[in-house]
């Protein structure tokens, strides 16, 4: 026990412990997994990160595009039956648990007696984009969609609410009084200002997901990303790896926060320094 304590420097003062940890993580990179002594933690993460990135970026593109479309559509169709219908759909999407949805998707697309429609779906796993982009795409398409469902629902509702708020703003009335077409008013004047909230939410969610928040999806679809790594080490109580993934996660969440602030200032000139 004392030896292990010493190995991790846990017998030293806190700041020193911290520095030692950072040194092992980032400089000597010799922090070693418990469960598998051959596994260096840092290379393990750098290997897993591209998988997570592929997963999250792809999903983000899908959820942004679709939530904006649905949000806009709901506002355009306000007063008709389609607006509440879209919002109920969105609500269903929000309340769908990811792992359950993932399992259902797998059941439909992976089972040996699946319908012919899904015969093209490759087995679970991951193919790097560098070795075969098409296979990369095919492997990820269902994980992407699975993650997106939740976020599309959520973001579509947020955007719709924002757009309806902005609709009553004086400058939207001014834009109409200028003779702009409804489409231009909606896209240039209403959507642009609504995107301010949208983008700040997006940055935070994106950071969390890249930081390992897509854990369940990765596990369900057998994607060897950071989430899966965390999951495996949690199961094995592999402390060094857990520590490393947590720090990795914190890193991205912080970065995302900083990026959101910068982006926020780009979008809203009022908080830009003069």
């Amino acid at each position: 026990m004392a030896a292990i304590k010493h190995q991790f420097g846990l017998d030293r003062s806190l700041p020193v412990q911290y520095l030692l940890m950072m040194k092992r993580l980032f400089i000597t990179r010799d922090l070693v997994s418990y469960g598998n002594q051959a596994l260096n933690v840092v290379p393990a993460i750098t290997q897993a990160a591209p998988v997570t990135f592929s997963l999250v970026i792809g999903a983000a593109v899908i959820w942004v595009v679709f939530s904006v479309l649905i949000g806009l559509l709901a506002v355009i169709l306000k007063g008709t039956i389609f607006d509440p219908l879209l919002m109920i759909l969105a609500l269903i999407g929000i309340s769908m648990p990811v792992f359950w949805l993932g399992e259902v998707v797998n059941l439909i697309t992976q089972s040996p007696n699946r319908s012919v429609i899904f015969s093209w779906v490759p087995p679970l796993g991951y193919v790097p984009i560098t070795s075969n982009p098409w296979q990369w795409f095919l492997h990820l398409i269902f994980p992407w969609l699975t993650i997106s469902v939740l976020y599309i629902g959520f973001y579509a509702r947020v955007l719709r609410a924002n757009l309806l708020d902005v609709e009553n703003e004086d400058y939207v009335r001014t834009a109409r009084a200028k003779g702009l077409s409804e489409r231009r008013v909606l896209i240039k004047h209403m959507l642009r200002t609504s995107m301010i909230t949208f983008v700040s939410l997006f940055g935070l969610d994106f950071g969390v997901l890249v930081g390992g928040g897509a854990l369940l999806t990765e596990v369900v679809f057998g994607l060897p990303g950071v989430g899966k790594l965390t999951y495996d080490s949690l199961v094995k109580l592999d402390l060094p790896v857990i520590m490393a993934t947590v720090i990795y996660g914190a890193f991205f969440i912080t970065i995302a926060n900083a990026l959101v602030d910068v982006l926020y200032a780009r979008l809203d000139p009022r908080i830009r320094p003069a």
Partner: protein
Amino acid sequence: MAEPLLEVKNLKVSFRTEDGVVKAVDGVSFTLSPREVLGIVGESGSGKSVTMMSVLRLINDPNMQVEGEVIYKGRDVMKLDKDQMQEVRGGDIAMIFQDPMTSMNPVYRIGDQIAEAILTHQDVDKRTAHKRAVDLLKQVGIPQAETRVDDFPHQFSGGMRQRAMIAMALANNPDILIADEPTTALDVTIQAQIIELLDKLKDDFGSAIILITHDLGVVADIADRIAVMYAGRIVEFGAKRDLFYDPQHPYTWGLLGSIPRLDRPKTARLHSIEGMPPSLISPPQGCKFRPRCPHAFEKCMEEPELVSRVDKRDHLDRCWLEPATKRVARYQTIEGGQAA
């Protein structure tokens, strides 16, 4: 009389609400001649904004109902299709609003917002539109227009924003400029600047102006004719001088008497119109001003029409009193007891 530029006929606008139907505008008719300045005066809630926004069909409340005709250049604006309506808005008839702080989109540069108005209605390229925006800003008196054109709205003061709004509204040389309380949110010294600017620009651009305000002092300067609104109706309508020097409606007298005036000796007490504006959901029977009117009599239980009751054909009012009676009665109200 010259062919009117704009003719509003029996405009009625109502909103369905939980408490009942709000009759915000109830039978408003007026005409506007080219290059004329028409002042519309009335208290909060009297229907000034709703009237003018309906002329441009800018209210899209699903609970709204509109009746009546708005004839512009021989066409009924109410019957125009979407594209034709967009051509009218900002092209033929432009509008500026009360609060300059919130009337511009905070995320776009002032110049781009003006250029957008130009590009929507004129077939020019972006560079030309931008140059025109600079010229317009110069015309409305923005110093260093060349650099300020790239500012965002929050970098402008209230008065400058209202100038920029005016520049934007005049960008397409509209026939009519509707200004909805353009100075209410501004200080008196800035208000004076804006009124002077409008006065100058109406000659430069040859636009007719409809100036909405609740301050009779503002229209005393630049209006040619004035309409006084009360509870969704025009209660008096006439040439400026007739309205100020021979006012026919007790509400107009009340307004004139309620203003603490700098041009008169101080009075001990201000005249005040007792009570409150009526409910628009269940308005009083007969003359809408009756519950507050000190001169009401039996006949007032029937609503008076807006017609001429004096020798001037263009001076209209909605009051049953005899003109002769009025001449005696009004001085007390207006001069606060110091009968002239």
